[in-house]
């Protein structure tokens, strides 16, 4: 329990303007975009690694929980302080510390927003590829903590592939550096990999060495329409086995298409059973070849195929796609999108089966389930909207989400491909990970013996 003396000490560390115990501020930091809730006792906005270290050391001495938070855009309750204590709002530590582009890297603080980093890199001809739907607001620290990814992960992989090293404040306040500025290193255990995706349960990220890529010379987007999502799923399997790796491969079902057309009528997407959006990037020749291969792989299954006419159309469709998750709330004035059971991943071959199962679950619970997501890497987002004032809707929603999670695991998949475990999915960790969860628990105990770092998350 925090007392006035401790709050004062914390205020002395970060400055009184960077600390708040106002009840409305605490309320605002009690949730992310998931349904998980937990009230902090204090919110602190550190500006330096030293401040983070001092705060965490104080918390360690007094057994106070510490939960790090980026932009609070998460969908698993990862930044929600389940056991109260301190929320460290890292969004103020948002500097690009070093542009080291000759070494294909930048050193950043965790609070920098993904889109702002990419805007800063663009003039130099580089980019940081992981691009979640929340790229306009999510922070790099949040992306690292959750190993987030996005639409281009089918070609470029997840955030993990771009983290060369980290500066971490450990549970007792010590500061360590992991990894290296080199493109590869095998010196010791890969602690960088351990901290990526650890959701703030093992340490607080205060700096990161990020690998960047050269921007591709060309990009092209193909829209392929299908009568059913299952047909689209079959087309994806065919495309991916034809030798082309698209830079994005997204599915939108008929409800999502309707929602996006509602959000931005200029899009005028064809009202098909499902649309696949493929993006191909690279040199002019590579893009041309990629388009030909995709068209060839889809032509027997698709009802229509066309390429985006220009950059403007391409940018508009991606901008709208990024917001698809929330846009489905627009379909019904009394229903709101609720993020549960929304992030399963299955092996690529199982995509058509998973889509079919989702359809069955939707019918079983009489609950419309809209499907979209990064189908190219087997990651499906299942969107459900409910009347939030209806207890019956909540029961249906939670039951459907549970079944979606279990189905994904039965198909050899995962309950979360990119959004994180947090506390929203921690109950499935034993089922999905088996005895590997015990190893995770051992690691957690070793690095955070007092259990002060983001307690109650990830099943550890």
């Amino acid at each position: 329990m925090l007392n006035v003396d401790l709050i004062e000490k914390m205020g002395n560390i970060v400055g009184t303007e960077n600390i708040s115990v106002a009840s409305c501020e605490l309320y605002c930091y009690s949730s992310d975009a998931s349904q998980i809730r937990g009230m902090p006792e204090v919110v602190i906005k550190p500006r330096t690694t030293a401040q983070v270290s001092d705060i965490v050391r104080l918390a360690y001495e007094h057994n106070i929980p510490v939960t790090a938070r980026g932009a609070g855009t998460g969908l698993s309750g990862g930044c929600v302080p389940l056991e109260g204590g301190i929320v460290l709002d890292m969004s103020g530590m948002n500097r690009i510390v070093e542009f080291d582009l000759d070494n294909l890297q930048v050193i950043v603080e965790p609070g920098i927003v993904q889109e702002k980093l990419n805007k800063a890199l663009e003039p130099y001809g580089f980019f940081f590829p992981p691009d979640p739907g929340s790229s306009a607001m999510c922070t790099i620290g949040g992306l690292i903590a959750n190993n987030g990814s996005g639409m281009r992960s089918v070609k470029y992989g997840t955030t993990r592939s771009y983290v060369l090293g980290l500066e971490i404040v450990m549970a007792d306040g010590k500061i360590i550096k992991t990894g290296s500025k080199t493109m590869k290193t095998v010196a010791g255990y890969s602690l960088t990999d351990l901290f990526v995706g650890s959701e703030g349960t093992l340490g607080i990220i205060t700096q990161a060495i990020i690998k960047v890529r050269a921007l591709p010379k060309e990009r092209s987007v193909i829209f392929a329409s299908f009568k059913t999502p299952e047909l689209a799923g079959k087309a994806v399997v065919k495309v991916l086995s034809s030798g082309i790796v698209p830079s994005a491969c997204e599915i939108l079902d008929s409800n999502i298409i309707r929602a996006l057309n509602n959000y931005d009528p200029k899009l005028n997407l064809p009202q098909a059973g499902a649309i696949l959006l493929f993006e191909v990037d690279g040199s002019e020749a590579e893009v041309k070849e990629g388009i030909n291969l995709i068209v060839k792989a889809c032509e027997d299954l698709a009802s229509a195929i066309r390429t985006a006419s220009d950059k403007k159309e391409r940018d508009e469709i991606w901008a709208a796609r990024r917001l698809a998750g929330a846009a489905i709330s627009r379909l019904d004035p009394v229903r709101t999108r609720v993020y549960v059971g929304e992030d399963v991943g299955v092996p690529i071959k199982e995509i058509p089966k998973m889509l079919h199962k989702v359809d069955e679950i939707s019918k079983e619970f009489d609950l419309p389930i809209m499907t979209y997501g990064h189908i190219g890497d087997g990651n499906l987002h299942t969107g459900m909207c409910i009347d939030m004032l209806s207890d019956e809707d909540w029961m249906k929603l939670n039951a459907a989400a549970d079944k979606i999670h279990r189905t994904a695991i039965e198909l050899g998949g995962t309950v979360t491909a990119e959004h994180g475990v947090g506390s929203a999915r921690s109950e499935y960790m034993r089922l999905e990970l088996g005895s590997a969860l015990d190893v995770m628990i051992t690691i957690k105990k070793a690095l955070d013996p007092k259990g002060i770092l983001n307690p109650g998350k990830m099943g550890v």
Partner: protein
Amino acid sequence: MEKDLRSILKCVRCGTCRSVCPVFEEAGWESASSRGRMLIALGIHNGLEVDENVLNSLNMCTTCGLCEQMCPSGASPVQVVQDTRRKLMLKGRMTDAQLVLRDETTSKGNPLGETQYRHSWLGDIADIKKHAPYVFFVGCLGSYRYPELTRRTFDLLKKFDVTLIPEEVCCGSPLLRTGSDPDSLVSKNMEQIKKIGAHTIITGCAGCYTTLKNDYPGDLKVIHVSEFLAERLPEMDLKHLDLKVTYHDPCHLGRCNGVFDAPRKIITSICELKEMKSHHEQSRCCGAGGGVLKGYPDLSMALSKKRLEEIPEGVDYLVTSCPLCRTNLQRGGPKVEVIDILDLLKMAMK
């Protein structure tokens, strides 16, 4: 009650508004973002204690509507903020600035504390015709802070069968935005408009425009003076000016009501237009609206300065079509003079 709660629950807390809310950009705390305000509105519904911090969070919103424009889930944070301010006002919970604004505006008919006759700028009272198809709604800033501009505007308008509301009072916008009851002002203006028999109200202020159009009863046609004059340019015998200007879209005229083309039609018929960094629906707020200039002048000034950073290089003037935006942008210390679109029109008259 249920309708209000549903409106709050439309927010999925995705945080898209964090990337666009100018107030959040300045303050950095979650309670200063639209998402935070939606949460606080929900909190109040769930019993969150209303203290000074709650009032500040709600009242720091300029009601610029950029969050609403960008909101993927179709939530209406501006309406939620205004409704929550109203509910709290009814319970006697308000900031000092809200209180002053309410009392001044209700007692004096304007939020500026002015007591002299509103149409003192008018040379000849006989110009106020008893009956006319068009009424020019001057607004408080036009009446008391920009009398010369108002006189020139009316001189132009009266040729087109336009009259004034003899006992015009504030449209009620400052009260509506900050949670007070504008009914007595609305009634006083409406009674006179009916007597005049006008079918169309013309105004030069974005705040008056949105209030008259969206908050007044009946089916009044409301147009901005730039819309009225953009249709009559051939009759005005204008000369081309060797100038380059930029244009600030007032939030309550552009984003909230879709008036983008008419001011641009006037500008481009006179001189060259170079757009600001953000414009049309994405335009940044000047920082004055929603009672923020009155209640949080430092914040308002900071927002103004941010908007002024978006002025493109090589322009001679920053043109706008709202006296409140003009006032606040001028406060921010612009590198070029801020003028009203009617000032530009005057320069082009032969």
